[in-house]
């Protein structure tokens, strides 16, 4: 009987985020109706655009990369009881240092070594940008929500300052146009694209050669034929697995989650709560910085307008993390879904003349619905605890996504 109830509770918890997304799309449909657009057609254009073809699928996966990395960082912070709204800024400073290091050193360290250096540079810089608000919170009680938002603006301005100054592309200065973007990073440290990797592995036939038809052909095409999809995707998935191992199989990870769930109990248990909070923020920033680094090394290959590089991923990454129930492995499919939403919004704009910004509104609604449905999860779990309190809490179910209490 107990296991039966446990199963239904888990099923209910697992379904809630989907209900939340459905609800968000229902509201989106009303907005579309008010605009005089058939929502079914619009959503169809969106889904087909994002997942229906080789190009759409490749773009979806490309966009899922920064979402995944930012989402992992967000999950670490939220699990640790701190709220990081600063992923935008952390991404920007990460991208800046990666670009700087890449342009300076790229030729000397071609290949994996150079890419590794670039990734570490972004990670370190993002980590520093996350550590500052973490430290301010731990030592001086500065609300980290507010400080991370301020740090975003500071990062944007630093970006413009550097891109107009020391980091500007010499070609722009020579041409007199002075557009604030950096030089292109040396090609030798481009993260390999999927098509490059397929070549190395000996897959050089196209889908047509192999006689693959329909959707299978499209999927094969994503993996083998030239597209923007790059190895950052594999990197991000590996990172998700590593974060899972870190949070659930190491002492430090346990400590982060313990502090997030109950800082007071953790303190009585002898944990250094302040230091753990700083660590959570640092790691969170490091992953956002890594997202910036991967965007530069894998996709853009140069730094330009800071807000165009971060592109709102700092916020949409929060949505991906929440929908993935703050579980590293859940964030993988969740990022692909929301990557598809971003791409689909673009396709919908072209097909139906619905401005893409609708997606931002829908993402906001997803957040509102997801955090609202947490209420039902909490309600049910407290009821359960009072009924059969002898049952051990299972630590793998992420049923308490928002443990952060006592801000500031």
């Amino acid at each position, binding site marked *: 009987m107990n296991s039966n109830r446990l199963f239904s509770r888990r099923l209910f918890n697992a379904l809630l985020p989907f209900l939340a997304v459905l609800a968000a799309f229902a509201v989106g449909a009303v907005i579309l109706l008010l605009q005089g657009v058939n929502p079914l057609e619009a959503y169809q254009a969106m889904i087909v655009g994002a997942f229906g073809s080789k190009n759409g699928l490749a773009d979806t996966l490309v966009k899922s990369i920064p979402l995944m990395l930012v989402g992992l960082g967000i999950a670490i912070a939220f699990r640790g009881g701190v709220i990081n709204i600063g992923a935008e800024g952390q991404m920007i400073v990460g991208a800046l240092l990666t670009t700087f290091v890449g342009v300076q050193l790229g030729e000397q360290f071609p290949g994996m070594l150079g890419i590794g250096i670039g990734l570490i540079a972004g990670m370190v810089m993002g980590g520093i940008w996350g550590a500052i608000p973490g430290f*301010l919170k731990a030592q001086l009680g500065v609300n980290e*929500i507010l*400080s991370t938002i301020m740090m975003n603006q500071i990062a944007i301005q630093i970006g413009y300052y550097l891109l107009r100054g020391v980091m500007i592309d010499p070609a722009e200065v020579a041409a007199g146009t002075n557009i604030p973007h950096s030089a292109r990073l040396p090609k030798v440290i481009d993260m390999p694209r999927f098509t490059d990797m397929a070549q190395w592995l000996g897959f050089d036939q196209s889908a047509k050669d192999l006689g693959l038809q329909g959707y299978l052909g499209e999927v094969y095409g994503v993996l083998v034929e030239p597209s923007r999809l790059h190895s950052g995707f594999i990197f991000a998935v590996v990172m998700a697995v590593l974060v899972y191992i870190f949070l659930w199989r190491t002492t430090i990870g346990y400590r982060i989650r313990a502090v997030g769930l109950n800082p007071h109990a953790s303190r009585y248990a002898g944990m250094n709560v302040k230091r753990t909070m700083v660590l959570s923020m640092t790691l969170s920033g490091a992953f956002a910085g890594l997202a910036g680094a991967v965007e530069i090394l894998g996709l853009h290959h140069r730094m330009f307008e800071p807000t165009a590089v971060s592109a709102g991923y700092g916020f949409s990454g929060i949505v991906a993390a929440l929908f993935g129930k703050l579980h590293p492995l859940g964030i993988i499919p969740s990022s692909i879904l929301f990557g598809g939403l971003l791409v689909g919004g673009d396709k919908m704009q072209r097909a139906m003349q619905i401005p893409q910004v609708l997606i931002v509104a829908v993402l*906001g609604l997803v957040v509102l619905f997801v955090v609202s449905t947490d209420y039902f999860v*909490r309600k049910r779990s407290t009821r359960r605890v009072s009924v059969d309190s002898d049952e051990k809490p299972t630590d793998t179910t992420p049923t308490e996504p928002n443990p952060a209490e*006592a801000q500031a």
Partner: protein
Amino acid sequence: MNEDLTTAAILLGIIHSGIRLATPYLYAAIGETFSQRSGVLNLGVDGIMLMGAFFGFYTVFQTHNPWLGLLAAGLVGAVMALILCVVSITYQAEQGISGIGLYMFGLGMSSLLFKTMLGTVEGVKGFSELRFCFGDSFCLADVPVLGDIFFSHSLVTYGAFALVPLAWWILNRTTWGLKIRAVGQNPEAADSLGVSVNRVRYASVTVGGVLAGLAGASLSISLLNIYQENMTNGMGFIAVALVYFGSWKPGGVLLGALLFSTVNALQLWVQVLNLNIPSDVAVMLPYLLTILALALPFRRALQPAALTKPFARGEN
């Protein structure tokens, strides 16, 4: 001699635009003060401001009546705030995240509506700046120095400053203010005395939403008289920070808003005068200042004790 005059004129200009630019911050931050004093952190102010800015602008664009614009902005602000109330109060969501959701919704919606309903940047004739003229020749606005500082703003700006003592009076001298402070400080005690905690919080957050809507409209139909996508550019988040800065007191918020807007104005002049500070660094200053101000040690003790803590009867 001549140089002194220019310096004086610039100084005056900075003060004048400092007062002007304080308008949206004041509306939004005073509104947020009500919300936070009742124990609810509304992080979606920026999204509400954008919606208020759009609806205010659109109404004036259609009706040519700035007062109707203000009304529309206030109404849409109230609706947005009620959405947050349901999520943050009734469903007890994590307030640091629900506000971000509301912000994204407001940002997306206002841009969507702008693109589908207007499409291009157009100007409207909103509230004009008063000159306080008596008879045909004498205007207070022409009085040297004082005129520039005190007598050459729009009604919307005067309204923002009038809001400060009004908010103080409501919070500290009325029963309703007492209830707001009680549910923000000790909701269990307030509840046991028969105060409906959640009803007071709903009301406070809604008042905050109306004022945030007006804050947005103050930009689009008074200060700038145009609408642009994402035109607040994060002002709403600054407003939230100003409440912390001002120690949850209207007077403190006024001080913070003036300081912030003056530094902002200063930064405009740095660019105008080609001073030897890169403009990017100057733009950064207010944000750095805010972080530093938040780090001042005495502030924490003044925070409403139940801020960000949802209330559920019988759970504590």
